[in-house]
């Protein structure tokens, strides 16, 4: 494969596409929707030069089912979309979970509900982390906060998907998708159907037939299948939690925020420090599994007066923060919706109100 320079300036959406190719993804199925269509544009061009397949599907429903078929045939495969399209894919998510097919899906999220708007939002947190499709299943959910991380997590998503035979969802947003930042390239990984003895690639007359299915009419078998899935999810929860924790020790306020919002919060932390208020940040990188232990540990610090979850929604991740804190400290929420971003000032005011409830210093 051609080598890109060690460090290049890339748009978030392009970084996702290039990372997938570098990770050995040679099959991409998608349907156009703003603000992620550049991924499809990039793939349409690039797949040809690497001998891969780009296919514009007739709908997101079709695209995710093409992913099902391709993943079942042992390929590294990806589809990308934005919120309304991700809703349509939920059917496929559930079947993919049931059939244990590894694949990567990116949601460059926009605001809802309905067609909503095309500006960035985090209103899909519940859908991403709590299901969306039917049945007891989990997707691993990654939340990058920079173009470099978009790139890196996309590459790692394919490994994670293969390791556990799960769907890995990358939850980004339009800001990250459109942002230009430098990216250092990782070496391409080797990825073939080898190591996927369960894949349906034809028996070759050498083995009993492989079947890929999510249906188990017999309740005992279905319960056993569900227990197997839950054991796998428990293993992911044990091994794959990731978060960035900054300045939590000695902090008066700990802010929880992911993705784009965490970038804004980082600036606020600096401003607060100038006022003598020490603010910590916990930025979940895996939204599922959620970094509950890190959040609980932060809440346990005697210096921490309260936690503040800042999100681009009406209060979604804050529920997981509250579960983790489990009443040890107050948990507050600040959110904006509709594509509006919280200003540094409004976040700072919430922090001041916690740290200096009487006003003044």
């Amino acid at each position, binding site marked *: 494969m051609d080598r890109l320079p060690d460090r290049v300036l890339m748009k978030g959406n392009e970084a996702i596409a290039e990372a997938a190719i570098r990770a050995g993804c040679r099959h991409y199925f998608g349907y156009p929707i703003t603000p992620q269509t550049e991924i499809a544009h990039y793939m349409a061009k690039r797949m040809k030069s690497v001998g891969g397949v780009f296919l514009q599907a007739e709908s997101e429903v079709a695209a995710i089912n*093409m992913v099902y078929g391709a*993943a079942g045939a042992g390929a590294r495969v990806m589809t990308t979309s934005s919120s309304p399209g991700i809703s349509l894919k939920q059917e496929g998510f559930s079947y993919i979970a049931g*059939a244990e097919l590894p694949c990567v899906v990116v949601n460059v999220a926009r605001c809802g509900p309905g067609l909503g708007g095309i500006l960035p939002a985090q209103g899909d947190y519940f859908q991403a982390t709590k299901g969306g499709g039917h049945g007891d299943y989990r997707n691993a959910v990654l939340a990058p906060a920079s173009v470099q991380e978009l790139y890196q997590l996309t590459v790692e998503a394919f490994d994670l998907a293969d390791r556990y035979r799960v769907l890995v969802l990358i939850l980004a947003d339009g800001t990250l998708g459109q942002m230009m930042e430098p990216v250092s390239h990782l070496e391409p990984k080797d990825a073939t159907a080898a190591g996927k003895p369960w894949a349906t690639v034809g*028996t070759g007359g050498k083995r009993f037939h492989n079947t890929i299915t999510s249906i188990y009419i017999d309740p005992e078998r279905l319960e056993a299948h569900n227990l197997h899935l839950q054991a796998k999810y428990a293993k992911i929860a044990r091994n794959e939690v990731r978060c960035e924790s900054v300045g939590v020790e000695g902090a008066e306020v700990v802010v929880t925020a992911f993705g784009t919002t965490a970038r804004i919060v980082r600036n606020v932390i600096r401003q607060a420090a100038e006022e003598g208020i020490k603010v910590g940040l916990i930025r979940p990188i895996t939204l599922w599994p959620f970094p509950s232990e890190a959040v609980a540990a932060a809440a346990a610090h005697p210096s921490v007066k309260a936690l503040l979850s800042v999100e681009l929604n009406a209060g979604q991740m804050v529920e997981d923060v509250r579960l983790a804190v489990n009443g040890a400290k107050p948990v507050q929420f600040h959110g904006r919706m509709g594509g509006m971003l919280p200003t540094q000032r409004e976040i700072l005011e919430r922090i001041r109100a916690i740290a200096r409830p009487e006003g003044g210093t």
Partner: protein
Amino acid sequence: MALVYQRTCGLLDVPFHYCPGCTHGIVHKLVAEVLCELGLLDGAIGVSSVGCTYNNYEYFACDMQQAAHGRAPAVATGIKRVLPDATVFTYQGDGDLAAIGTAEIVHAAARGERITTVFVNNAIYGMTSGQMAPTTLVGQVTTTSPYGRDAATQGFPINVSEMLATLRGAVYVERVSVTSVKGIRAAKKAIRKAFLVQRKGLGFSFVEVLSTCPTNWGLSPVESLKWVDTAMQEQYPLGVFKGADLEVEP
């Protein structure tokens, strides 16, 4: 003693679960026989759909995937794009293919996917106990058209083969029935041709098989065969709608 008949290598030694007089089993056998006779079984991947045949992945001896309701052509597309040399087929009922899965079948055909679809039309939703299907005849009584399908409020049957034949990507489209020995022979020939069209990489191939559902039609097996030959064939004439002159025999 000479062996004159044996189970086809394309089917596993598992009993079918279909009702007495149901012709799904015959269609399975034909597909399996063709795959074996053409030497395609070891490189074949089939896609089961949602309907009475939801678990026929347990019957076919080749690798199989089970797809969500209506999505088999999209799943097959994914498989074929990964394994262009494989022989990929879907096996779908009329509810699956002509209602919830209309978009998927039309676009797989329009793209000229090198896959083969075996479409089993029994003019009813068999598995869910006999509701009206898009293919239900006008006047036909089903559990959701208890007074007979009323065209004014429930519309008209869809002739899928005729519709798909209008698409350039669909290169071979034929409708057959399996109500007689002669019909079964013709059906097998059509299925064989459909797979050969795929092997030659000519485009999308499609065989619609008129099939019985005695259980939900409320007819005996023999009456059911007659009903296919009369009422159903009136709405769904047998014949080749596309690709009659394709020469594909090796």
